[in-house]
Structures are given as structure tokens and as C-alpha cells.
């Protein structure tokens, strides 16, 4: 049987990689993908704790988070499409309309 801490460390690694991706990449699509990575790390934690405690709630909320990720991806990509139509760019540092 695999100890729960193994899963927690895996989740930790994916979370940190996701954070680094969001902070360092310039392409907004890749930033959104890094956010999906972070949500996945959360899901691993939920399912691992659900297994450790024999509690169903963890898996139920994992399903809610997957739904949430789907909604976030749809709206986020919609915003990127609308922005690209106006400014012809997907790079975060060129999105400076509100920058003084």
C-alpha cells in the first residue's frame, strides 16, 4: 500500500511547478494550463485524504473541482479569444491597456 505522504509530495511538486509556470511564462494560454496543473495537484490531495480517512467527501469535491476547471477553461479561453481579436497578441506582458 502506498503511503498517503507519497501522494502529498507528488501533489506538492506539481503545485510548485504550476506556480512557477504561472509566474514565469508570458503566453496566457500556457499560464491557464499551469493553473489547470495547480487544480490537479489539489485533486490529488483530496483523493489521497479521502482514501486515508475513508471519507467520500474528498472524492465528491474532486468532482466539483474538475467541473470548476472545465468552467474556468471555457471562460478563460473565451477571454483570450476576445482579447486576441482586439490586440493580436497572447503574451501577458503586451497586455498593457490598463497600465499607465
Amino acid at each position: 500500500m502506498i503511503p498517503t505522504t507519497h501522494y502529498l509530495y507528488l501533489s506538492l511538486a506539481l503545485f510548485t511547478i504550476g506556480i512557477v509556470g504561472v509566474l514565469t511564462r508570458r503566453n496566457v494560454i500556457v499560464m491557464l494550463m499551469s493553473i489547470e496543473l495547480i487544480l490537479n495537484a489539489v485533486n490529488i490531495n483530496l483523493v489521497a485524504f479521502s482514501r486515508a480517512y475513508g471519507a467520500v467527501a474528498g472524492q465528491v469535491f474532486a468532482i466539483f473541482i474538475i467541473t470548476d476547471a472545465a468552467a474556468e477553461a471555457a471562460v478563460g479561453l473565451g477571454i483570450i479569444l476576445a482579447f486576441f481579436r482586439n490586440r493580436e497578441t497572447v503574451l501577458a506582458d503586451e497586455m498593457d491597456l490598463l497600465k499607465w
Partner: protein
Amino acid sequence: MTLPILLFFVFAGIAVGGALSLIFAREPIHSALALILVMVALAVLYLLMGAGFISAVQIIVYAGAIMVLFVFVIMLLNAGVENRTQHSIMARWLGIPLAVFLIGDLAYWMARGAHALPLAERSGSLAAGPVSTQDLSLHLFQSYLFPFEITSILILIAVLGAVVLARREP
């Protein structure tokens, strides 16, 4: 080393490697393919945890629906190679130390809190056992029925929002 542990390390390695290639790939489409790899590896890990339904949903919704959306948008926008910039001095000198600090700090507190996990679980024999899909569905449609319905409204709003945002102005 038993088979589950071996499988865990193989697929955890694939997941971490895929995640690293996600953030290091210059082409967005390569990042998307790396993310699909991560999703599939995680689905196998969910199976190892006895969460069959989550594993199936992971493949169908994440690797299927969401990633198709990403790949579609990347191809639609024709997003090319992203070049590095040297604008941020702080990112250049503090980036790697701060990332190492973040992971070290989190790992330290996680190691300190590990004793709070259930006892049977740490010694290797899981007292509680995996949650069955039947249990999951009973809870989802009885105890958590209201949040479940709220979720469907959330999805509806997201669909409407995506259509309104992506619509071409008349």
C-alpha cells in the same frame, strides 16, 4: 518493492516530467501535449488509490474535453514560439531561490504534519479502504445534491459566458 509502489513511482515520475516539460516548452502546443501526459499519468494514480470514477472523469473531462479546448484555441490563434525576455531583474536573480524556498517550506511543514494522519495508514495497512463508486454516487446525489445542482448552474453560466466572449461583434 511491490508492484503498486513501483507503478506509483513510474507514473509520478511521468507526471512530474510532463509538468516540467509543460513549463519549459517554448511551443504552446508542446505544453498542451505535456499537460495531456500529466492528466493521463494522474488518472493511473487515481486508479491506484482505488478511485475508479475519478480516474475515468479525469480521462474523459480533463484529457478529453478541456485539453481539446486548449489545443483548439492554440491552433485557432496560431500562437507561435514564445521568446524569453530579460525585463525583470528580480525574476532573473530571485526566481530559482524563491521557487526552491517555496517547495522546501511546504515540504518541511508537510513532513512535520505527517504524524497527524491516521495510524493504520502510516503503518501500511489501510483501515478505511477505498471509497466505492456506489458510495460516491449515493453521497453525490443525496448529501451533496444541492452543491451538485449549483455546479450545473455554474457550468451553464460558463457556457453562456464563453459564447458571449468569443462571439464576433456584429
